[in-house]
């Protein structure tokens, strides 16, 4: 195993630095600050990685410490040989391990290789970084060494076993920690704490025993109180029995009293019943009969009241005694009709008679219409004619205005037409001439041989001629139309004037006949004439109606007949007011009729009353009673007594029933024979005694309850003690188990250490031999004062006592450390020898020993590749 070459890209102060290693000793002798330790650290870091990465201090944290001063790529390459094969490892470092890069290549093929991983140092040397630094890598001022688990494992060929000698220190520490944590003597030890708790619990439980004693004491008192309460309860039960017995007697006594009371009440009721019965003469009327007869009695009273109503007064009786002849209704109706007819006829005659004024007016009108009287239709016809005539006149005036307007327009139009006709005549002539010329031209063209053009010219010529002719005709027609409208108007006016004239002739004729007075307006005159005519006709009609002979004769006949009729009753009316007389006569007849009916009803009621009175009378007599003047009162009294009797009877029967039920339920002879129980105590006195006992019992109960509560409280405390007892038992068991574990763990630790010593002792001698060899090379003397214990710990014999090498001088310690390292390396690597890195380890040696160190270098370089760093030529 050897180094071939290294190249540093950047690492601490070193940059782009290359070093080729040779076999044997490679001495790097450079001044202070050149970077020797950095180069040594680079070699170590390339194999095992950085130290103290978790530290904040940049001097301790190697990743920070060797961060390139000049920036650039942080890392480099290391070429080495192992078991005949050359490798190149390249590493670049980031600010943290996750950013690091690692690549291993086989230098023969330059291909990536997986013979080693990032844990290159451990895999290459089979030791950890710590062991590496205690053996192969000797840094400045740290020459001392000691045997690590890794060194032991490597020496014992157990580097592959992770859970053996290489883990001894950890295992030993864990066992030690566990023993400490469990320690039964240390305050922090679990077993010590358990023991303390056990002591505490025992004390508390011992104190708690007093609770049990108290509970037993209270329990005894409680039992005594219960016994006393039970005794009182027995006494109370006895009193209750006596109370019950007395209570039964009281109940029976009460029943007896009740029975006797019932019997007395029944006797009393019997007497009262007899008294009620004595009112009746042996016959007790039935309620229903009494109510029936009372109803009959009440009916009789009603009938008697009706009799009083229908009874005739003295005057009425006198009226009935007159022999007044009654008129039958048919005849009376007949006379009424005659009287009404008579009055009607007389009224008609009175109404149609003319007054003086009316006679004078009739005479005057007779003179006026002596030659005849115009008809109503005739007068209306004249009225219409007058209206038509006036309308015709107005229309004629309007049309006259229209005719004048038309005439004016006609004159203007005629003048304009004349002008137009003149202009048109000129245009017509030109057009006519142009047409003729065109036609002639056409003919000429045809003649000249241009048939088509000639034809066209002829047609155009004819068209022009035709247009001239048509224009003339149109103008003529317009003139004719205007003339027709005026002539129509004039014709209408003529017809209208003729009509007006006819109307005026009719009016004039009528006025002449009936003498229209001068100055009177025609319309008013016609209305007056019409009124006169109507008045005259009405007066003539009334004159015609007045004084008819038939009527006069009828009136006389009727008067005679009526006078004869009234004569039968001896009262002919003087005023001849027959209707009033007839009314008076009819009244008299109706009055007499009413009296007769009243008298009849009175007799009927009287008969009915007498029958009812007889019925009541007979009933009273059947009851052995003498009927009195007011039987209804007699009956009411009977009913009252009967009710009293019934009530008494019911009460009597109720008591009788009650006694019967009582006798059926109770033992009457026993009740009647009931005697007072012996003893003078009363229920009250017993109740008082029981009350006292109950109160005492209640007191006892409260006492028991109080004991019970005390016991409950104590029980809770006792529960706590019991819980403690449980805890104590569990804790004791657990502690015992823990102590056993503790003992066995201690034994384990001792036996493991013992085993480790036995194990390492087997190669101690070989290591010691190596140490002696290198000591001799370095010092030139034999080491006689040194020995190695089973734990590969070197000791120096000073003053006949083995002492730790820490007592030696620094130079000696370095010397011994270097020798020991080499001895260990020799023991560890029997076959493939590793390279050694020595970072100026001889700096503390004196001159003689420095010379020895140079020999030492020469010697070891024969067997190992040595990379030696020094800053001084004397140590080169």
């Amino acid at each position: 195993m050897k180094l071939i070459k290294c190249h540093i890209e950047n690492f601490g102060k070193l940059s782009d630095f290359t070093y080729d290693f040779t076999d044997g000793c490679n001495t790097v002798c450079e001044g202070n600050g050149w970077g020797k330790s950095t180069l040594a650290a680079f070699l170590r870091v390339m194999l095992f990685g950085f130290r103290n990465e978790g530290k904040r201090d940049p001097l301790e944290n190697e990743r920070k410490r060797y961060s390139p001063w000049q920036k650039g790529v942080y890392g480099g390459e290391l070429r080495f040989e192992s078991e005949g094969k050359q490798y190149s490892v390249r590493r670049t470092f980031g600010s943290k391990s996750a950013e690091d890069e690692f690549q291993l290549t086989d230098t023969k093929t330059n291909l990536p290789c997986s013979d080693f991983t990032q844990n290159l140092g451990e895999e290459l040397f089979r030791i950890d970084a710590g062991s590496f630094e205690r053996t192969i890598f000797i840094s400045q001022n740290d020459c001392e060494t000691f045997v690590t688990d890794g060194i032991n494992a490597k020496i014992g060929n157990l580097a592959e076993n992770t859970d053996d000698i290489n883990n001894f220190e950890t295992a030993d520490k864990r066992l030690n920690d566990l023993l400490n944590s469990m320690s039964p003597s240390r305050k922090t030890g679990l077993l010590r704490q358990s023991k303390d708790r056990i002591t505490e619990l025992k004390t508390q439980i011992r104190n708690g025993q007093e609770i049990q004693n108290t509970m037993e004491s209270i329990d005894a008192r409680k039992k005594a109180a219960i016994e006393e309460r039970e005794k009182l309860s027995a006494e109370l039960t006895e009193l209750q029995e006596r109370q019950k017995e007395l209570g039964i007697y009281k109940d029976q006594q009460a029943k007896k009293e009740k029975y006797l009371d019932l019997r007395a009440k029944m006797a009393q009721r019997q007497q009262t019943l007899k008294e009620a019965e004595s009112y009746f003469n042996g016959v007790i009327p039935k309620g229903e009969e009494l109510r029936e007869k009372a109803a009959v009695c009440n009916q009789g009273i009603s009938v008697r009241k009706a009799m009083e109503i229908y009874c005739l007064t003295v005057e009425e009786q006198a009226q009935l005694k007159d022999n007044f002849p009654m008129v039958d209704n048919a005849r009376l109706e007949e006379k009424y009709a005659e009287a009404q007819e008579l009055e009607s006829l007389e009224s008609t005659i009175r109404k149609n008679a003319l007054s003086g004024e009316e006679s004078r007016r009739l005479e005057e009108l007779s003179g006026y219409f002596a030659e005849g009287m115009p008809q109503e239709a005739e007068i209306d016809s004249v009225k219409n004619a007058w209206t038509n005539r006036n309308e015709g006149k107005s229309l004629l005036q309007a049309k006259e205005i229209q005719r004048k307007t038309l005439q004016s327009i006609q004159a203007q139009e005629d003048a304009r037409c004349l002008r137009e006709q003149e202009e048109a005549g000129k245009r017509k002539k030109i057009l006519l001439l142009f047409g003729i010329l065109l036609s002639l031209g056409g003919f000429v063209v045809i003649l000249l041989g241009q048939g088509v053009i000639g034809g066209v010219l002829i047609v155009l010529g004819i068209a022009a001629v035709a247009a001239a002719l048509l224009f003339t005709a149109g103008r003529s027609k317009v003139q004719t139309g205007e003339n027709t409208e005026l002539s129509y108007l004039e014709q209408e006016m003529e017809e209208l004037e003729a009509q007006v004239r006819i109307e005026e002739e009719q009016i004039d004729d009528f006025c002449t006949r009936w003498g229209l007075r001068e100055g009177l307006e025609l319309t008013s005159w016609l209305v007056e004439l019409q009124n006169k005519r109507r008045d005259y006709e009405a007066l003539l009609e009334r004159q015609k109606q007045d004084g008819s002979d038939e009527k006069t004769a009828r009136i006389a006949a009727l008067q005679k007949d009526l006078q004869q009729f009234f004569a039968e009753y001896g009262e002919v009316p003087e005023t001849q007011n027959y209707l009033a007389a007839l009314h008076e006569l009819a009244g008299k007849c109706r009055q007499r009729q009413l009296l007769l009916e009243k008298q009849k009803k009175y007799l009927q009621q009287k008969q009915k009353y007498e029958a009812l009175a007889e019925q009541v009378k007979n009933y009273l007599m059947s009851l052995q009673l003498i009927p009195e003047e007011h039987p209804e009162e007699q009956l009411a009294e009977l009913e009252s007594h009967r009710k009293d009797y019934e009530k008494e009877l019911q009460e009597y029967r109720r008591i009788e029933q009650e006694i019967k039920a009582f006798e059926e339920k109770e033992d009457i002879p026993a009740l009647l024979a009931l005697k007072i129980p012996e003893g003078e105590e009363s229920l009250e006195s017993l109740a008082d005694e029981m009350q006292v006992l109950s109160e005492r019992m209640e007191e006892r109960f409260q006492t028991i309850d109080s004991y019970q509560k005390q016991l409950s409280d104590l029980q809770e405390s006792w529960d706590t003690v019991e819980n403690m007892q449980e805890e104590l038992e569990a804790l004791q068991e657990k502690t015992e188990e823990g102590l056993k574990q503790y003992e066995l763990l201690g034994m384990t630790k001792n036996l493991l250490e013992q085993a480790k010593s036995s194990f390492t002792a087997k190669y101690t001698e070989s290591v010691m031999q190596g140490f002696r060899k290198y000591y001799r090379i370095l010092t030139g003397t034999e080491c006689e004062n040194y020995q190695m214990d089973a734990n590969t710990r070197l000791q120096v014999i000073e003053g006949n006592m083995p002492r730790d090498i820490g007592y030696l001088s620094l130079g000696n310690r370095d010397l011994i450390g270097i020798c020991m390292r080499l001895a260990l390396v020799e023991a560890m690597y029997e076959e493939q020898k590793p390279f050694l890195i020595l970072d100026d380890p001889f700096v503390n040696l004196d001159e003689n020993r420095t010379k020895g160190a140079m020999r030492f270098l020469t010697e070891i370089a024969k067997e190992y590749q040595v990379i030696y760093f020094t800053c001084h030529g004397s140590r080169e």
Partner: protein
Amino acid sequence: MKIIHCADIHLDSKMSANLTKEKARERKTELLTTFQNMVTYGAEQGVAAIIIAGDLFDTKNVSATARNVVKDLIQGHPKIAFYYLQGNHDEGSFTSGLSELPENLHLFGNNWTSYELSGTENTSGKGVAVTGVELTPENSGSIYNTLSLDVDQCNIVVLHGQESEYSARDKAEIIHLTALKNKGIDYLALGHIHSYKKERLDARGVYCYPGCLEGRGFDECGEHGFVMLDIDELTGTIDSTFIPFASRKLYTIPVDITGCESTTEIMERMRAETAGKGYPEKSLIKYELVGKIDVESEKDIDFLLHQFSHLFYFVKIKDSSEYLVDYAAFAKDKSLKGEFIRTVMGRADLPEEDKATVIHYGLQALAGEEILDA
């Protein structure tokens, strides 16, 4: 006629030996509830009486809740006659706290007390009598001589104590069975033993322990409940049936872990012992690890407990297994381990069991594993 025979209910038991405080409190409540359910069940079945053959309560000082619940249960079922014989745990604990005893609660004293069961449908049949005595050091020797029963009726005798074929003077907890033979007993209703047991007493009768109503610890595993007596009143014959009634059951499951090298393998063995056995989820389970395992094997009881504790109401693991060291394998081993084992084995003063443990500790320490098995 139907009668319930129960005993050793131990109301107000603390049960804190195995359980946490919360679970112990819960179990205490469940115990009371199960008793309540038993009475309700009896009422539904139309039982005429409930015989409590001692130890209804666990302590002399009963909690107010338990006392009130029991009192209300008795008063709430007036048609059921409760025959309560006090045991060694509950002497005077219940009745002394009551100002007035319920009418249907019947007690026994230091002398034989007999109750005729009323309410039989057929009056022409045999009567049923419940007779009992509370054993004390004073009466335990002589009480058997004073027992006089009407052999023509159906006799149920109630006692609380440990069965024995021999007499034990001044020992209240011993029941002298021989002295009770041929006394005309049809059914000897006993209490004190916490598991069901029924045996023949003599040619006529049987004796029976119903066991406790609920198992309270792993010494009370298996079925628990009460006994239902069905009495033919015409012939006087008694047919008794054990009715399992506990709300939860306790099981101890032995698991042989011989050959297991890791906690996972032990876990598989435990699973194999659990699966398909029909243990209800609400059970209380104790796994007992037995057998021998290699000294280098790994075993974490805490992990196992964590794996199984959610499967049941309560789980406990007791490790009774031992370590087995293959000495031959290390006899010539050139390593610290080999050296260590040889060193331990060379200690003649150490018991074999301790040697195995020491070796286990050492190997665990070297392997960087937990040294103690938690």
